[in-house]
């Protein structure tokens, strides 16, 4: 009986093999995952084509496209041209997002808490351990800070969000640069680990007096409170969409470098300091599947800006999209080809 069921299952599986929709698979960054899910869902509705995106972290995106296990990888850590040549990958940006420092302190609302950039580093290094520490209190005279231990929540997987966040911290704190450094996965001196932006959000919700860092879409969707932090020049800046856009304006893309660019700490009085583009990685030898992938992103560039804005991302400007389309053409992977 069981065998018969199993055999039927196999038979069905082989039978339906021929009735398949066009299908591509991607994996990687959790930073843009809410948007890619949305795009893929709407793309499927519109065209019947399936894009299976799995959020496993940027490290996973780089690894799995590098090993050619998925059709495209996604990473918010851009790879340098040399590395791309070595791994035989193409790279282009898909959307811009922002990393916000989120906290769960009962009684303290969104953007109310001000954190100096170097204090953020100290908190995530475990040097500032209580919420009413002098360093925090002096910037927040109007808040009643609780004498509670800070629970740091960081990523346990290889993460582009962590890369950009640690890049930022390394530039604002010498201690951080010397003791922790920059990377997708770090040796954290304190806190608990969670998988993905999703995991951090899940734990932050459940853990009072905790602090974490997530892409803005996760903050927006879960109505977290995020800290007001400092621009490159030390001015207070709220974690607000207009300030992300102000920073994103400074982006300058170079297709010859495969768009390699880190957007953190841009100049300007309103520029939120931790803004990052998220990138798509394609295997150079897979021309045919690459065209299917670029077709998806071409569609998303045309039809997906509204989704992006609704979720809290910053769509790429038209000029950048045109630049990316030219890049596809140059490498013979544009969808119309």
């Amino acid at each position, binding site marked *: 009986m*069981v*065998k018969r*069921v*199993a*055999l*039927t*299952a*196999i038979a*069905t*599986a082989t039978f*339906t*093999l021929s009735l*398949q929709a066009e*299908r591509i*698979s991607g*994996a990687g960054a959790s930073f843009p995952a*809410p948007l890619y*899910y*949305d795009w*893929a*869902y709407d793309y*499927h509705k519109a065209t019947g084509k*399936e894009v*299976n*995106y*799995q*959020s496993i972290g940027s490290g996973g995106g780089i690894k799995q496209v590098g*090993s*050619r*296990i*998925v059709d495209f990888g996604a990473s918010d850590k851009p790879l340098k041209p040399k590395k791309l040549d070595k791994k035989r990958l193409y790279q282009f940006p898909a959307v811009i997002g922002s990393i916000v420092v989120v906290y769960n302190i009962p009684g303290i609302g969104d953007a109310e808490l001000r954190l100096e950039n170097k204090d953020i580093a100290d908190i995530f290094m475990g040097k500032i351990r209580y919420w009413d520490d002098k360093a925090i209190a002096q910037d927040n005279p109007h808040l009643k800070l609780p004498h509670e231990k800070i629970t740091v929540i960081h990523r346990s997987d290889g993460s582009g969000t962590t890369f950009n966040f640690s890049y930022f911290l390394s530039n604002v704190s010498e201690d951080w640069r010397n003791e922790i450094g920059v990377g997708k996965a770090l040796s954290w001196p304190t806190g608990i680990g*969670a*998988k*993905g932006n*999703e*995991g951090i*959000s*899940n734990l*932050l*919700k459940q853990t009072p007096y905790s602090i974490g860092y997530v892409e803005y879409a*996760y903050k927006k*969707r*879960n109505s977290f409170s995020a800290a007001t932090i400092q621009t490159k020049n030390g001015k207070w800046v709220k974690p607000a969409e207009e300030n992300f856009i102000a920073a994103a304006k400074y982006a300058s893309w170079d297709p010859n470098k495969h768009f390699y660019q880190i957007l953190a700490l841009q100049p300007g009085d309103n520029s939120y300091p931790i803004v990052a583009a998220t990138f798509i990685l394609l295997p150079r030898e897979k021309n045919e599947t690459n065209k299917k992938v670029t077709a998806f992103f071409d569609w998303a560039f045309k039809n997906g800006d509204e989704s992006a804005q609704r979720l809290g991302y910053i769509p790429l400007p038209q000029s950048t999209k045109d630049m990316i389309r030219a890049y596809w053409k140059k490498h013979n992977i544009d969808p119309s080809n």
Partner: protein
Amino acid sequence: MRGRKAINALVLTLSTVSAVIGLIFLFWILWTLASKGFDAISSKIFIYDTAPPGREESGLRNAIVGQLILVGVASGIGIPLGILAGTYLSEYGKNSKFANFIRDISDIMMSAPSIVIGAFVYAVLVAPVGHFNGWAGSAALAIMMIPIVLRTTDDMLNLVPTQLREAAYALGAPKYKVILQIVYRGAKAGIITGVLLSIARIAGETAPLLFTSFNNNFFTTDLNEAMPSLTVTMFNFATSPYEDWIDLGWAAAFILGSFVLGVNIIGRAIVKKKKG
């Protein structure tokens, strides 16, 4: 004498209390599963596939079908292999060194960490093939299943009286016929139960699927593709921050738990009926 009585009473109380504590925790978990799962179950779950958080048309259809296929194919590989191997041990190998060695090895395999099997299958069936695929997931589950089926088959065939075999030999039947027609018939109930329990066991495994069949947001029956499963979906959804996903995670847990328990109950009922 009094001391003895007192110790007796104390020990009996402690045992009863520990039993009660243990049972309370276990039923607490079962209750959570039932109430959370029941709340989250709706017909939508069987109609729609997994969708981005916040969408109306969101369900678990792809994960349920994927799970059935993965477990079905694993059973298709694991059951015949397990039964054949068990038959060899009981009917041919008997107490030979080789047979006992295989018995020992399958005991070890039975308790091997499932995540390590996942890593092994990734190295053998995912990396060389070039994409996550359902076959790899099924293979990982089959590897876990074979030793269980092997050992129960071995044990059950051993229970078949020798006289039955001898009577059949006396009639001039060849060995394979004796095995297929006499021995298997005698051990049928036991083997079916063992097989059912092994299906229940692998159906609840998550770790071997994480790196093999991976996950898929779409409905698929193609084993060459990444394939969704209830367990991996539960893992992803339960660790997400989205209420609707977490609810779906509980619904998946409820469906899976009911399936596993249901198969277990059927398996036990078969043995009982046979005994009675």
